[in-house]
């Protein structure tokens, strides 16, 4: 029971992406990652962009689509235990503004990476593959679907 809790929100995970300043923090985090990668002298600009894209998509996949459940106990007896964070957002309502934002941001990063790598084939394959790993789980048709038993 949510005794001593300041709100009647059953699962705070559903609302955390809508909180004030979360999008800005996320954008700043990606920017910081990119600057760190650019500062390493061994990486050229195309490599740094591809690395930013890949690491960002990897992080997004792990935190939004791989980890299931909530890091705290919820009073709803674990309804969200088998759901990834993406599926928990806004209690499963599709096309809310947070979902749109987190769908568009890897696409924007992909455009920027393609531009800065000058559409080089190797980079293109890497970037496209990592974009797909992050876009496909976000489709509403794949809500709750576990392909090949991954992440059941």
């Amino acid at each position: 029971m949510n005794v001593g809790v300041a709100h009647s929100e059953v699962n705070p995970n559903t609302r955390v992406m809508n909180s004030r300043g979360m999008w800005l923090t996320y954008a700043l985090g990606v920017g910081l990652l990119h600057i760190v990668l650019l500062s390493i002298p061994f990486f050229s600009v195309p490599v740094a962009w591809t690395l930013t894209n890949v690491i960002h998509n990897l992080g997004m996949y792990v935190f939004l689509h791989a980890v299931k459940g909530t890091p705290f106990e919820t009073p709803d007896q674990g309804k969200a235990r088998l759901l990834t964070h993406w599926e928990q957002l806004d209690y499963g309502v599709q096309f809310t503004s947070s979902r749109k934002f987190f769908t568009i941001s890897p696409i924007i990063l992909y455009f920027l990476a393609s531009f800065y790598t000058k559409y080089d084939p190797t980079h293109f394959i890497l970037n496209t593959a990592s974009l797909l790993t992050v876009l496909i789980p976000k489709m509403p048709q794949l809500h709750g679907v576990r392909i090949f038993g991954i992440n059941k």
Partner: protein
Amino acid sequence: MRPEPGGCCCRRPLRANGCVANGEVRNGYVRSSAAAAAAAAGQIHHVTQNGGLYKRPFNEAFEETPMLVAVLTYVGYGVLTLFGYLRDFLRHWRIEKCHHATERKEQQDFVSLYQDFENFYTRNLYMRIRDNWNRPICSVPGARVDIMERQSHDYNWSFKYTGNIIKGVINMGSYNYLGFARNTGSCQEAAAKVLEEYGVGVCSTRQEIGNLDKHEELEKLVASFLGVEAAMAYGMGFATNSMNIPALVGKGCLILSDELNHASLVLGARLSGATIRIFKHNNMQSLEKLLKDAIVYGQPRTRRPWKKILILVEGIYSMEGSIVRLPEVIALKKKYKAYLYLDEAHSIGALGPTGRGVVDYFGLDPQDVDVMMGTFTKSFGASGGYIGGKKELIDYLRTHSHSAVYATSLSPPVVEQIVTSMKCIMGQDGTTLGKECIQQLAENTRYFRRRLKEMGFIIYGNEDSPVVPLMLYMPAKIGAFGREMLKRNIGVVVVGFPATPIIESRARFCLSAAHTKEILDTALKEIDEVGDLLQLKYSRHRLVPLLDRPFDETTYEETED
């Protein structure tokens, strides 16, 4: 909640004696109209619009989180989460010693007992600052309390008691609003006498042989205190809500509950089987919309009218410090013919010129509230809860309430404590102690809140509520604030995520009539120091310190932004 930039300036005062009226007051201070319109743009306030319903200014403010602070808070939680994953990884691969409970090797083929991920926050965030909660005390928790000192050598996984006792810690965490948490005085003597006469407990339910004459006396007293026809008392405040709401509503009824209602109300609503709809905290437009939709559309599929519509609100919300907009709720309830259930757990005894709660505070008629519920835990220094209302309602609850049938009745010494303290508040014991306590609490509240706002902290809630949440925001500051305050001999309660929304962790001060001005000044001095040390003074509209004048005089100040 919508801000109304120009609207409030156009209203003229409604009172004949020229006192400041609701329309001109924003956030407790009067502004000139031009400055108000310009300055209002960047702030979000709750300003009352209905000058006629409110007899005194209703000043509630929930200042928005500054963006930089929000970003840093997320960064803080992000870093803690990453380190949490790292530590879990180390613990899993046995590089680091694992202190918490895990299954034995023989059990690993069975279905797992523990969901490891659900304890992530407990393991990695709560454990780090666990020494701020569950501190053992060893004296009566009045204005000052003695705390047992404890140390931890393994980062709060286990505690050792050094044997020292920190004496005289200023207690800002107890719900001791009127100062009845004492072990000396008339209440204690009366309770001791009743203990000798009646014993400790009855061990029976009200409907069997647990109904004492003491209980009848208490219920008559509670009814006269509240101004209602009849009342019934229960052994536990939480159980009063969770066991009686199912007796009042059932399937086919609609419950409109505030966003920030207490767990007992939420549990009672769920147990009843009625449909629950939640309206935004203290937001009358949201409530009216829900009421209109309920009456126009009826039940979800059958479109039949609802059997009952019950509005669940609290008097003071203890985590926000806000007071319910009772005049508007009652106006809405009368317009749409709904029922009102008012939970005065924190406001009974603490608000109002005679201490009769939020109904008294707004100067309304207690007959307008259908079910008045409250607890004896906070202002009366006892335990238990009550429900007051019309005689038919209470007679119905005597037979149909789960607590009446299955739960043991109140213990006699506790009843005597309630009776004595209530008589003291009402002035029936022949002294003016009750009235003094109520006045002292009101003065303490205003003084404390004003001083904290002047210092530049962000304080939530209504100007008159004795619950003062001070915003901390960042996870590290939660632990730091609690520990620094204890070092300076002040005990506070801090709350963080997931109990509050992620960017709204806070420290909550509960003021008491037992706090003298010296105690409050000491506390304020220390809070000022800690605020400078931890950089907690986030407020962007500093208030110019006003001269010490009583409330009724008209004082005009400008606020600097």
